[in-house]
């Protein structure tokens, strides 16, 4: 397997009104290049904090310990102007390109992933001393990918993540222009083709539309188009379908699956819904109270969970084939 | 406790609080330190400050003790300013809540009345009221021009709150509409209204001073505006008679404003985090 990123001893603490809340405690997790990884948990599990930490979007007030090391190939280097490149260190780029050739093997499950991760981690140590002088905090991200260019992020509420007074076309084109160094007309052409890819009806008029003119599902399609506009290697969807109804949710999940497959992106799908995540992901990581409870291939997590908490989550799922509670309560006439 | 600590960490707020504390101490100790009538003659006329230590700030044209007048004037400024601001906030919050919550015709009528008051400059309104009714109702005169701001802010807040689930919840359990307006909606609409209080108190103190300056204040009480007005006649020969109460006025308004902003800031931080 090829680790795209290794997360080691990641602890995130929020300071709030004098007291401290630990959102993540000593998390170790490898993200495999090209995989669809689901992060599952209930409220307070730290799943959204993990998503933000991976994307480098944690608020400045958060205290971060541990490290996230990236092995990201500089695929976009050719397209990008030199001005946006420097934050990928050349040495990191080399490690990335040397490992990107081998395709991820789906049979390796998370637990054994630690061994595979040792060598890049050792190589990482030298890089850590270089960077250590720069950052005062013990936390350290090497070969830091750039949010927007290397990582696309889709939030739960598209009305909050889209600018209400900017046209859809401009919001997507801006991402492409900033990160790919395209001209405005090239960026708009790219925006239009992206709107076609996310299957927005009538992309031409949608380019000139404002977010409030679209439905919730359409807005989320636009948010996805903006997230993938710069051709990121990683797509993070944080509860991206939770505010949508079931039918639209299924459409958006299908869209994410198609885009990730077509572009060879790595997907981090953050969700509270284990059934939904299991339909989409190859691997599932179950979080609770800021800790990683269980990690494994989807079929193993769903079919033969090792941890009681995972079993409890699965048992709590109420599907279309679950025995009705009414029968158990003896109420059904 | 932590709110107090946060308040004390802002230097402007601390400065404001100290100024206000001094002012309040002056107002409270006025009759202890300077018993008797501050308008009585205490010594020779137009004694400059720092000459006679029994009259540290000197005397005015009629030989009255300036320091005693300053202390007693603090009382008037504070009492009238706070009372007028409180009246303006209460009237504004009630009118705004009723208008926003009832909607329809009630809203139209109340807001057109608000418009009418708002289009007349508040100082002119106070001036006209005092010249008709007399200086004893100065508090009402000042409140008359300042309640419209709180009313508008309260109404805007109520319009958003009345669509919330908990207002629907209160209707579902059968609560009377007036109880919903004043028990459920108004308390939650208050923070932005109270945020205006520092500006309103400061403005009320200034308006009171201006009315007194024009001779429309209560003639039986010492006021800083009246002192400035008195000193104006001898501005060239004894400028301190205008400067001393002038500085007191500036420091008071500054203190009220800084302390008020400090409180708003602290509570806003707390609300933002919860």
């Amino acid at each position, binding site marked *: 397997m090829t680790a795209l990123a290794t997360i080691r001893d990641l602890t995130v603490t929020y300071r709030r009104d004098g007291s401290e809340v630990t959102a993540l405690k000593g998390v170790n997790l490898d993200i495999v290049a090209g995989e669809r990884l689901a992060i599952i948990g209930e409220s307070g599990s730290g799943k959204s904090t993990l998503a933000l930490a991976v994307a480098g979007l944690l608020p400045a007030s958060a205290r971060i310990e541990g490290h996230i090391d990236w092995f990201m190939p500089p695929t976009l280097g050719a397209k990008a102007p030199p001005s946006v490149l420097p934050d990928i260190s050349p040495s990191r780029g080399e490690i990335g390109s040397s490992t990107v050739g081998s395709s991820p093997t789906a049979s390796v499950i998370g637990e054994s992933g630690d061994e595979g991760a040792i060598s890049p981690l050792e190589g990482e140590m030298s890089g850590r001393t270089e960077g250590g002088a720069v950052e005062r905090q013990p936390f350290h991200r090497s070969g830091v990918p750039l949010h927007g260019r290397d990582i696309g992020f889709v939030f739960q509420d598209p009305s909050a993540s889209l600018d209400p007074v900017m046209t859809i076309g401009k919001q997507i084109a801006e991402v492409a222009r900033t990160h790919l160094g395209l001209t405005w007309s090239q960026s708009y052409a790219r925006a239009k083709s992206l709107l076609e890819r996310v299957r927005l009806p009538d992309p031409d008029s949608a380019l000139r539309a404002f977010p409030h003119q679209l439905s919730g599902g359409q807005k989320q399609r636009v948010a996805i188009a903006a997230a993938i506009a710069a051709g990121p290697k990683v797509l993070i969807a944080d509860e991206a379908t939770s505010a949508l109804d079931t039918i639209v949710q299924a459409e958006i999940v299908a869209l994410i699956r198609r885009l990730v497959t077509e572009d060879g992106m790595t997907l981090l799908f953050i969700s509270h819904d284990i059934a939904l995540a*299991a339909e989409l992901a190859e691997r599932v990581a179950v979080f609770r109270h800021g800790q990683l409870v269980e990690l494994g291939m989807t079929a193993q997590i769903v079919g033969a969970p090792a941890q009681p908490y995972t079993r409890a989550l699965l048992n709590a799922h109420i599907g279309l084939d679950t025995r009705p*509670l*009414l029968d158990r309560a003896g109420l059904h006439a | 406790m932590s709110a107090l600590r946060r308040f004390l960490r802002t230097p402007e707020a601390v400065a404001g609080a100290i100024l206000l504390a001094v002012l309040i101490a002056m107002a409270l100790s006025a009759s202890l330190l300077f018993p008797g009538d501050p308008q009585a003659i205490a010594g020779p006329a137009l004694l400059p400050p720092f000459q006679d230590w029994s009259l540290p700030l000197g005397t005015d044209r009629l030989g009255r003790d300036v320091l005693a007048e300053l202390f007693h004037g603090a009382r008037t400024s504070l009492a009238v300013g706070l009372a007028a601001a409180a009246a303006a906030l209460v009237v504004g919050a009630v009118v705004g809540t009723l208008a926003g919550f009832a909607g329809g015709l009630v809203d139209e009528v109340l807001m057109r009345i608000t418009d009418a008051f708002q289009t007349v400059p508040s100082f002119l309104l106070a001036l006209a009221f005092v010249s008709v009714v007399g200086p004893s109702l100065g508090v009402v005169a000042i409140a008359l021009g300042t309640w419209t701001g709180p009313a508008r802010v309260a109404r805007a807040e109520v319009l958003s709150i009345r669509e919330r689930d908990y207002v629907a*919840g209160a209707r579902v*359990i*059968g609560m009377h509409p007036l109880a919903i307006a004043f028990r459920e909606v108004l308390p939650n609409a208050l923070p932005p209204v109270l945020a205006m209080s520092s500006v309103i108190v400061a403005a009320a103190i200034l308006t009171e001073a201006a009315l007194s300056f024009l001779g429309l204040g209560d003639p039986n009480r010492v006021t800083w505006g009246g002192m400035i007005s008195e000193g104006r006649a001898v501005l060239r020969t004894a400028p301190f008679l205008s400067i001393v109460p002038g500085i007191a006025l500036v420091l008071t308004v500054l203190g009220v404003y800084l302390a008020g902003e400090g409180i708003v800031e602290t509570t806003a931080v707390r609300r933002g985090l919860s």
Partner: protein
Amino acid sequence: MSLLAVSNLTKRYRRGGKTIAAVDDVSFHVDPGETLALAGPSGSGKSTIARLVLRLIEPDDGRIEFESDDFLALRRAALRARRARLQMVFQDPLAAFNPRATVARVLDDPLRIHGIASRAERPRRIAALLERVGLTADLAPRAIHEISGGQRQRVAIARAIATKPSLIVLDEAVSALDVSVRGEILELLLDLQRQEKIAYLFISHDLGVIRSIAHRVILLDAGRVAENGDARTVIDAPQSAIGKALVAAAPRLNRAGP
């Protein structure tokens, strides 16, 4: 005799010069002690129906009969008094309570308003209500925002049953809860229904939950009734297009094992 009979209910909105029927000629009934579910995609009118039935908004057309009375004819004090019999639980229990309230105040209000208990008796009634929904009486002095989401929804249910209603409208009442809490709340609702013979109008987008706890279901599409019948019959073999789409979109957990 139906507890609630809704006939030809219609509610129109004007948006951008066009009139849209959010609820279009909808009729249904709820029998005492049963659960009727309203399901449909967003914009299908299910939440509008909930608000119409509770008279939080007024319909443009149609009739609502509740406990054999013309519910739409009730005014002011008569309507407020009758509200004791028709309660509601909201989706987001944090938004459903005054942010300044304590648990005790939230439960005190209905007891006071409907004269159910004297001032001296109320603390005991509040404690009993809290225990009825699986909470402890020492929760009473706590502020609403201090307690957990699951506890808050239990308090919301306690408030709804305080006035001994015959019907409770549950508007996505379990949708925002964590799955582990959701099961417990559903069990509580079923237990209350069995003990107190309360009927539920259960609004949800989740067909799995509906199939689990509802007796009958109405599927709505664009403000109209698309399909209705026995909950399991309809969901196991939907006939309408919207029913088929909803069933196809529901996530499935294949627990066969690797």
